[in-house]
């Protein structure tokens, strides 16, 4: 057992706060002037924001009338406290919304669990996500275990956004790995075809791909192969995701020294063992920052599905503040939706930063 080294905090020379402030922000007359002007400006903005968002705001539900007559002009969070269910669950039947809530919580738990290093193996991670996704689907869709059936047309809000994001990731990631492997196939015609496919799809706007899959595909494919519009959009989106992610993975592979694969070959490891235990784990480590980035973008761009007529969290927010009695509170609703996105995306990128630090230690 290695001895435990107590963590000794580095002893910083005790510096007077005033000296520090002076040397950094008030060193010269001009510095001082700039500092004062900026500080005043920031303080003013902060004060107005706090006033609007908190001090003068109306929080109580069903207080639309109060908001309208409010002379201070504070935020009307009443729109959120009255209509938040639409934002989270869309048109999902009111009595069944607890299912939607639990489903979302399950997916969030899955996301949190997959942050634990214990789950980082080629077997556990896919298993965790598939299981979580299955629970999510059964809860949302129902029709089993005495749960009333709720078809995809009635899904909406945050739960739809999470569903699309999870489905795209779950479908897109294995596809990306396959694409990346084909892209570096030793057979030139396979590698070149794959490169062409990836480049073509990457050069198309996501929106046009979604349109193609949602609206054009039913005319092309035979009846019975088309599936629900939602799933067509998800497949199209997953394809788009896979093409970007495949290039990210390939970049991670190229950063590996050739000796890694040679050593694995020399030990008699077959192709899939080399890929699964030597190449991919290291490629993903190398490609972690752009991979997290890709997830962030994918989460944010789920809101494009509104254009094809789905009520994701963005569209639901707009609908929630779109009625005649709430249309003055559009800004508050967007702030709320923005906050939801922020919570998800910010935690994702903080987690990415943590991973980078963690993997950078002792393992390279």
């Amino acid at each position, binding site marked *: 057992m290695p001895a435990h080294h107590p963590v000794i905090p580095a002893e910083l020379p005790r510096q007077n706060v005033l000296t520090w402030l002076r040397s950094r922000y008030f060193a010269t007359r001009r510095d001082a002037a700039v500092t004062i002007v900026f500080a005043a400006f920031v303080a003013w903005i902060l004060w107005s924001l706090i006033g609007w968002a908190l001090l003068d705001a109306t929080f109580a539900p069903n207080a639309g009338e109060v908001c309208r007559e409010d002379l201070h002009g504070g935020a009307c969070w009443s729109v959120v406290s009255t209509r938040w269910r639409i934002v989270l669950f869309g048109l999902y039947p009111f009595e069944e919304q607890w299912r939607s809530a639990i489903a979302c919580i399950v997916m969030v738990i899955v996301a949190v669990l997959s942050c634990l290093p214990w789950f980082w193996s080629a077997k556990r991670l896919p298993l965790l996500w598939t299981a979580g996704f299955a629970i999510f689907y059964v809860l949302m869709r129902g029709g089993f275990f005495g749960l009333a059936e709720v078809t995809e047309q009635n899904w909406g809000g945050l739960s739809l956004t999470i569903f699309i994001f999870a489905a795209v990731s779950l479908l897109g990631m294995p596809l990306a790995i396959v694409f990346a492997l084909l892209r570096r196939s030793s057979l030139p015609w396979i590698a070149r075809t794959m490169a062409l496919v990836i480049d073509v799809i990457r050069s198309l706007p996501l929106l046009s791909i979604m349109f193609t899959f949602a609206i054009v595909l039913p005319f092309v494919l035979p009846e019975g192969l088309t599936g629900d519009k939602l799933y067509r959009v998800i497949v199209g989106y997953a394809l788009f995701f896979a093409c970007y992610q495949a290039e990210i993975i390939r970049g991670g592979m190229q950063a590996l*020294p050739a*000796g*890694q694969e*040679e*050593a*694995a*070959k*020399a*030990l*008699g*490891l*077959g192709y899939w*063992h080399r890929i699964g*235990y*030597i190449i991919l*784990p*290291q490629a993903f*480590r190398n490609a972690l920052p752009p991979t997290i980035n890709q997830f962030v973008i994918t989460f944010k761009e789920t809101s494009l599905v509104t254009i094809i007529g789905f009520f994701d969290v963005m569209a639901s927010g707009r609908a929630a503040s779109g009625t005649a009695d709430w249309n003055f509170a559009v800004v508050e609703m967007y702030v709320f939706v923005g906050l939801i996105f922020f919570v998800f995306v910010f935690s994702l990128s903080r987690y990415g930063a943590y991973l980078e630090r963690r993997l950078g230690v*002792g*393992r*390279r």
Partner: protein
Amino acid sequence: MTEPAIRIASMHKYYGSFHALKDINLEIAKGEKVVICGPSGSGKSTLIRCINRLEEHHSGVIEVNGTPLDDNVDNIDEIRREAGMVFQNFNLFPHMTVLENCTLAPVLARKIDRGAAEETAMRYLARVKIPEQAHKYPGELSGGQQQRVAIARALCMAPEIMLFDEPTSALDPEMISEVLDVMVGLAEEGMTMVCVTHEMGFARQVADRVIFMAEGQIIEQAPPDQFFDNPQNERTRTFLSQIVGH
């Protein structure tokens, strides 16, 4: 007469239009220790890498323990399991601990259960004198320790032949002997060894035969005493004087 461990006949290898190995004929008996030397770029690495198909030869025959190296993937995997290789740059897997490095291939390619594989691995790690490093990552070890792990990793597959490609060239001078000691021990136990190295002391001590290569050809081969004390070929003499020179 038993079959040789390695038999190479009329073997040629090209990189594009560059003729890297020219008409190589070589037989290595079971238990024999062969040292290959020669100037940089003479094809030593290419030759040794052809033996386990890290490079593909273009014509001629290579047989390892009687199994021919051809496009039969099963033969290739079989030969790779029989011939362990140690590289100049160690090529340990940086994302796995030392112990995981040593057990991965036995578990996956030899289907040995994990407990037994770990036991074997600890035995070999003890033999290369670093059992206490088993749970560290390669990045935490010195070069000499890493190379000893690489040797242990290869031995865990219980190979009949060991191929070394300049195993001490990337090491700081003070670490060379700890690796050579392990290799000498291996030789004394009767392992068949093919070793590209310029460590002439090692060659004198353990080699049955020293082979000199230049420009993709085997120029001269002889037992070490004869090779070092009475080289026949002019190029061998020049080469030896250069090595001894520094």
